[in-house]
């Protein structure tokens, strides 16, 4: 992925692209932009302020993400950067981009249910990200990270992660 060059950043043109290039440490195929946790990048007289929001209250990746954002800006020649955390509005999987959903599936993680305005989301069945079969079942409602549950495909017998709808 092409990110802003140093000159662009120092003129304040591409700070969003620098922040948006940072990968989520727990799902490293997704950028924090794909995941929808990058909320704002603002340039002011005191430097750049990057605002992010956690997926879950206890998400242990937030400190790592902050360090990675600072590091990305340092590589781009900026060290006047602050990272702020906000809780409201609360993150939802509806904020995962189309690109993010595609990357998740390619990585072997079934993406969350698609947002349907005004309707309660109900996951009846998931398509196996390995073989495409809809014949799958939930093994465990909790998985390797707070944002995932564990499923298995009855057709190809492979287990897979599901990014829980929130």
């Amino acid at each position, binding site marked *: 992925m092409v990110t802003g060059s140093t000159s662009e950043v120092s003129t304040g043109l591409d700070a969003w692209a620098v922040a948006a290039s940072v990968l989520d440490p727990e799902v490293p195929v997704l950028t924090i932009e794909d995941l929808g946790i990058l909320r704002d990048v603002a340039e002011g007289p005191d430097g750049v302020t990057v605002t992010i929001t*956690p997926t*879950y*209250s*206890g*998400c*242990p990746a937030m400190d790592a993400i902050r360090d990675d954002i600072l590091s990305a800006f340092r590589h781009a020649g900026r060290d006047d950067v602050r990272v702020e955390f*906000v*809780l*409201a*509005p*609360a*993150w939802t999987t509806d904020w995962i981009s189309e690109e993010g959903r595609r990357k998740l599936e390619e990585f072997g993680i079934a993406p969350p249910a698609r947002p349907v305005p005004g309707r309660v989301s109900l996951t009846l069945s998931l398509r196996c990200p390995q073989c495409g079969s809809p014949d799958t079942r939930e*093994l*465990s*409602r*909790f*998985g*390797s990270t*707070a944002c995932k549950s*564990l499923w298995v495909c009855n057709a190809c017998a492979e287990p897979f992660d599901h990014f*829980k709808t*929130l």
Partner: protein
Amino acid sequence: MSTPARGPSAPLAAYVLALADDALVAAQRTGEWIAAAPQIEEDVALGNIALDQLGQARNLLTYAGSLQDPPRTEDDLAYLRGPEDFRNVQLVERPWADDFGVAMARLLVLSTYLVELYARLAHSADETLAAVAAKAVKEVDYHRDHATMWVLRLGDGTEESHRRMQAALDAEWPFTEELFDDAYVDPTLLSGGVAVNPAVLRDPVSARLAEVLASATLRVPQVTAAPGGGREGRHTEHLAPLLEEMQALARAHPGATW
């Protein structure tokens, strides 16, 4: 004055601290199931639930500390207070008696209560509390589903699982009364739309619990309430050892980071 917070924000600081301590002590206790649950999936589930509770505790503790004069950090509040300064309900501090049924009974009660609390607190006049609650309500709703599923399975399972699930509920029930006691909430917080009156949660929580227990062929325990007092810093003998374990490292190496 023994109250750590003074000035106009003192009632709010005290309210937030009580909610924070409920979450923190629940998280520490729940974490004890990691590598001790009956299935590996439950190790993972209860680890994740404890992590959510810890995240809620951190958000609330950070806010409570910022309201104190002088301000204190979340770590100050978590690691440098003794049991008498904790304001959690006694429900969350008691040990599990090595019984997974007790864990599910308590998780059902606590998460059912917290869903009702956080859903209302998400509309608090206080922006920070509203934001923390709006985030937390989705998490505790998932915990409630999980606990409900287990209580149904164990209650309507074998004779043995039914007996133990009922015994677990009977043991937890005396400690549920404290959840609805509004004495610790300053009236100005209620009139200002900042806090949720815990007394109004009694009916929706009781109705939901009764519904789950009926489906699980279990009875709602008829028991005498425990004396309570957690909100005033009176705790069972089980809180001190829990805190000792949680705080030992931070106290032995003040300011250490890794």
